[in-house]
């Protein structure tokens, strides 16, 4: 492809990125920017050019070694729910803006520690950035198809301009705010976009090579499996190899947390904790997709080119070889995306560290105190801008002078090993409150020295002198000091070897020196805050123990210098309202000190903030014991608050229970009144009948014809019967409802009981010419109170009879055996139960509206009593719904 058109494509692509970042900055609040998918994709900044090109090189040359770099993060991802969330919470609470801030704050705002962490990060990341530039330059050369393309001077080298453009991008979107703990949504949105592109293009090329150039995975496998040494590419080769594997997994596990760019995207740019929910499973999925085609691309390349070309660029060379320069350009853009996101995020993170933990605390503080607020914020931004340019340009020169000879893989691993030196003070410090700053510093320095000796020095010496005597024979020929085989441990790969020795020494130093010295009280205070974040986050600003003399006016002065008049005033008024202090408070307390330090941390770093505030207040020394005692007390305070809260919740629950109970009582009372009313009414009806008939009889006893007298007497008898029945029913019902009825349970045959019930009503049935059918003639024995069940059956049968037409009526009685219960049903072909009555027919005195036309026959208690009896037997009763014709009432009786 033409050199110029390629440059044009690159510029167009960068313009698109600028546009996306710009759009995201403008629409900060939109859901396009604030969602878990963008967060997950931004985590994919982990996949740099090293993943995009380097993996294939390793897969082709040394086999499985590329995998552990992704397995570490896969192991780490489920842990995020505990670990990363804790880190995010601490960072948000303290307005932390970089990993250097995080570590220095944990050890009591330690200035030197912050600077040391910054240096380690710089040292570890610069070569890594230069590795990305190397990838850009080499892929550019491949795509541009210029054999003559060998840059002779910097101004001639397009990589230099690409680097400058990236610096402009990072500067523009990375330094909009003085407060570095603010989110950089523009950069994150562009990173997410690039993550989509790089994965997409990588998958496209993978599918193209595997299924278009070759005939699927089995085809590639069967071809490659005949080649020499193939078995060493698909397996672990012995125990030594598995040690390498183990250390590499550990290394990448650490890297996913600690690489400055990873810390930036996963912790500092996290908008909401709950985005972790998606990231925990989606990020491993992303990595998996990125790794699926690696081996096939590598083998396809190997089959096509043999060992003639650099295996890292098979993805570009294979489509080019087949004349598909469009695909090759896509792949190039994917790789370019990987580079841009890595370089931009890394430089952003580094520039914040360099300005807040190195330059400002070690030189610019005095100047800032004298300056005007506007100029201060300009200064801070400029320091960051210059840092960004310096970092990228340094990385470029590093690339020009060093990394041309080295593979992507080896530089990447050196970076990982260097950054890993922060792990003990970071991880152990999160969970162990005795870890001290002195120990952290010693651990890191010792670790770095070992890495220098075992990893960096050998390749530098080799690059300069061209001889590998140093590696072969060790320092001054002492074989125990061979850099790649210290004390005879010669079976590990150089990075694994360096990682093993440096990490062991680092951890031991950290642990030992933490225990030998007594910690400083301030340091211990922060340690407690970090380790027990759940309790201390509720304490908020009171979590810092501070004693001494300070004035609000002095502190306000400092705040104004960095935040400006309006912002400082607003922050203070928020503070006063929050703690219910009067706005003209003169004397500052520990909470204000802590609050102001936090406010400044975002702009100038935690160490400088501490120094600045300390310069305007008079702090008294407190003993460690005192600090611990105060912290303990405040924690107890929290716990007692928690207990109080629980108690009050319990009380609230109890009172709501009482309320419902009271409500129930009121309803019961109402029901009782209604019951009495109905009973009285029901009793009155027959009595009125009796009284009227008697009166008539008494008045006209002589004149009345005999038949009429008999009729009246019959009426009296019927009404008395009805009265008697009603009273019996009421007594029964009362007994059942109050639970005073004892069942006389024995073993009976249900068939017998059913027959008895039927015979008791059979004469009425035959009078009305209603057919009674017993569907199930089998007998079955179970335990129940026969008299009561007889009552139930008679009730149901006579109920059914009431609704049946004469002559055509048909009543069916049936029973089925269920699982541990008998289901007995009585159905008729009468007019059925109206659907609105279904739920109420078992209530006392409920009589359907539709009965108004006819005089009710029963007492209104029959079904209610039936229900009580069945329930007393632990059974259930209901009316079947959805029948087309007639009604069906069913009840169950349990048996063992």
């Amino acid at each position, binding site marked *: 492809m033409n050199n110029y058109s390629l440059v044009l494509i690159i510029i167009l692509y960068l313009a698109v990125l600028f546009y996306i970042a710009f759009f995201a900055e403008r629409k900060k609040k939109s859901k396009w920017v604030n969602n878990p998918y963008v967060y997950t994709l931004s985590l994919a900044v982990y996949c740099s050019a090293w993943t995009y090109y380097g993996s294939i090189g390793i897969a082709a040359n040394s086999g499985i070694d590329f995998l552990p770099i992704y397995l570490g993060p896969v192991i780490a991802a489920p842990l995020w729910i505990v670990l990363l969330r804790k880190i995010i919470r601490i960072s948000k609470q303290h307005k932390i803006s970089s990993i250097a801030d995080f570590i220095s704050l944990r050890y009591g705002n330690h200035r030197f520690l912050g600077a040391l962490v910054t240096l380690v990060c710089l040292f570890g990341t610069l070569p890594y950035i230069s590795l990305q530039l190397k990838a850009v330059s080499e892929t550019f050369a491949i795509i541009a198809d210029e054999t003559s393309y060998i840059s002779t001077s910097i101004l001639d080298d397009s990589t230099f301009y690409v680097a400058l453009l990236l610096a402009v991008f990072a500067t523009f979107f990375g330094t909009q705010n003085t407060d570095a703990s603010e989110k950089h949504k523009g950069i994150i949105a562009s990173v997410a976009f690039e993550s989509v592109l790089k994965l997409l293009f990588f998958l496209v090329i993978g599918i193209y090579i595997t299924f278009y150039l070759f005939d699927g995975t089995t085809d590639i496998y069967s071809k490659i499996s005949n080649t020499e040494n193939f078995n060493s590419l698909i397996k672990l080769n012995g125990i030594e190899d*598995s040690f390498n594997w183990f250390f590499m997994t550990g290394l990448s596990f650490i890297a996913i947390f600690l690489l400055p760019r990873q810390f930036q995207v996963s912790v500092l740019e996290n908008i909401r904790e709950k985005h972790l929910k998606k990231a925990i499973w989606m990020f491993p999925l992303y990595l998996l997709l990125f790794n699926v085609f690696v081996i096939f691309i590598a083998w396809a390349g190997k089959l096509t080119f043999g060992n003639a070309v650099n295996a890292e660029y098979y993805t570009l060379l294979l489509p080019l070889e087949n004349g598909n320069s469009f695909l090759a350009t896509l792949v190039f853009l994917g790789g370019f995306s990987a580079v841009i996101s890595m370089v931009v995020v890394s430089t952003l993170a580094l520039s914040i560290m360099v300005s807040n933990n190195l330059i400002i605390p070690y030189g610019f503080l005095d100047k800032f105190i004298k300056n005007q607020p506007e100029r201060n914020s300009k200064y801070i931004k400029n320091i960051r801008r210059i840092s960004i340019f310096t970092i990228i340009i340094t990385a470029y020169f590093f690339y020009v002078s060093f990394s041309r000879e080295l593979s992507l893989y080896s530089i990447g691993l050196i970076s990982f090993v260097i950054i890993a030196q922060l792990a003990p003070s970071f991880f152990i410090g999160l969970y162990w409150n005795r870890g001290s700053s002195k120990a952290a510093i010693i651990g890191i320095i010792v670790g770095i020295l070992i890495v220098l000796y075992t990893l960096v020095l050998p390749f530098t010496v080799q690059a300069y002198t061209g001889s590998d005597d140093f590696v072969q024979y060790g320092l001054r020929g002492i074989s125990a000091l061979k850099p790649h085989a210290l004390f005879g441990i010669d079976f590990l790969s150089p990075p694994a070897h360096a990682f093993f020795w440096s990490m062991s020494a680092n951890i031991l130093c950290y642990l030992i020196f933490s225990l030998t010295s007594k910690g400083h009280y301030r340091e211990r205070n922060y340690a407690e805050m970090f380790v027990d974040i759940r309790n201390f986050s509720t304490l908020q600003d009171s979590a810092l123990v501070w004693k001494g003399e300070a004035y609000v006016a002095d502190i306000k002065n400092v705040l104004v210098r960095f935040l400006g008049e309006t912002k400082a005033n607003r922050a203070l008024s928020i503070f006063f309202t929050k703690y219910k202090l009067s706005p003209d408070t003169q004397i500052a307390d520990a909470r204000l000190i802590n609050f102001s330090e936090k406010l400044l941390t975002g702009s100038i770093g935690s160490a400088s903030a501490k120094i600045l505030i300390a310069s305007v207040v008079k702090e008294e020394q407190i003993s460690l014991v005192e600090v611990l005692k105060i912290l303990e007390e405040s924690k107890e305070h929290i716990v007692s608050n928690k207990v109080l809260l629980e108690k009050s919740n319990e009380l609230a629950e109890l009172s709501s229970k009482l309320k419902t109970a009271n409500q129930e009582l009121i309803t019961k009372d109402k029901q009782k009144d209604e019951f009495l009313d109905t009973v009285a009414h029901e009793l009155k009806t027959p009595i009125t009948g009796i009284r009227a008939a008697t009166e008539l009889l008494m008045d006209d006893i002589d004149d009345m014809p005999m038949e009429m007298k008999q009729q009246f007497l019959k009426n009296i008898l019927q009404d008395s019967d009805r009265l008697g029945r009603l009273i019996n029913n009421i007594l029964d019902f009362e007994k059942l409802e109050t639970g005073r009825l004892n069942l006389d349970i024995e073993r009976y045959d249900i068939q017998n009981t059913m027959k008895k019930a039927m015979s008791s009503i059979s004469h009425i049935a035959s009078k009305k010419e209603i057919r009674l059918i017993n569907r199930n003639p089998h007998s079955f024995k179970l335990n129940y109170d026969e008299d009561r069940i007889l009552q139930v059956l008679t009730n149901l049968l006579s109920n059914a009879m009431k609704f049946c037409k004469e002559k055509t009526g048909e009543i069916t009685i049936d029973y089925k055996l269920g699982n541990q219960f008998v289901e007995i049903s009585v159905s008729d072909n009468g007019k059925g139960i109206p659907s609105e009555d279904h739920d109420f027919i078992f209530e006392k005195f409920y009589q359907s509206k539709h009965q108004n036309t006819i005089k009710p026959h029963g007492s209104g208690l029959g079904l209610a009593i039936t229900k009580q009896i069945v329930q007393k037997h632990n059974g259930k009763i209901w009316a079947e719904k959805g029948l087309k014709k007639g009604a069906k009432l069913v009840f169950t009786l349990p048996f063992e």
Partner: protein
Amino acid sequence: MKQYCYGSTVFFLFLDFQFLMKKRHEQKLVVLSIALFLVFNVPFLLVFNSDGQLFGIPVFYFSIFSIWILSIVISYIVLKRHYE
């Protein structure tokens, strides 16, 4: 009344920092991580260290990718069911 107000602020603070997931379900993920660590390292890894292929993918890669997918599915299910 004042006491009550204080109580309620404390309560809201707790809400703010309350874990979105019960500890037991969180620990499921921690255990998953430990299991992955064991499976992805020697000596366990040597179980898959054999010749041969499945669908053109060597057994070693195939096993690692399968465990990888399994871990994604497990985390997905645990988080889906127990978050919030």
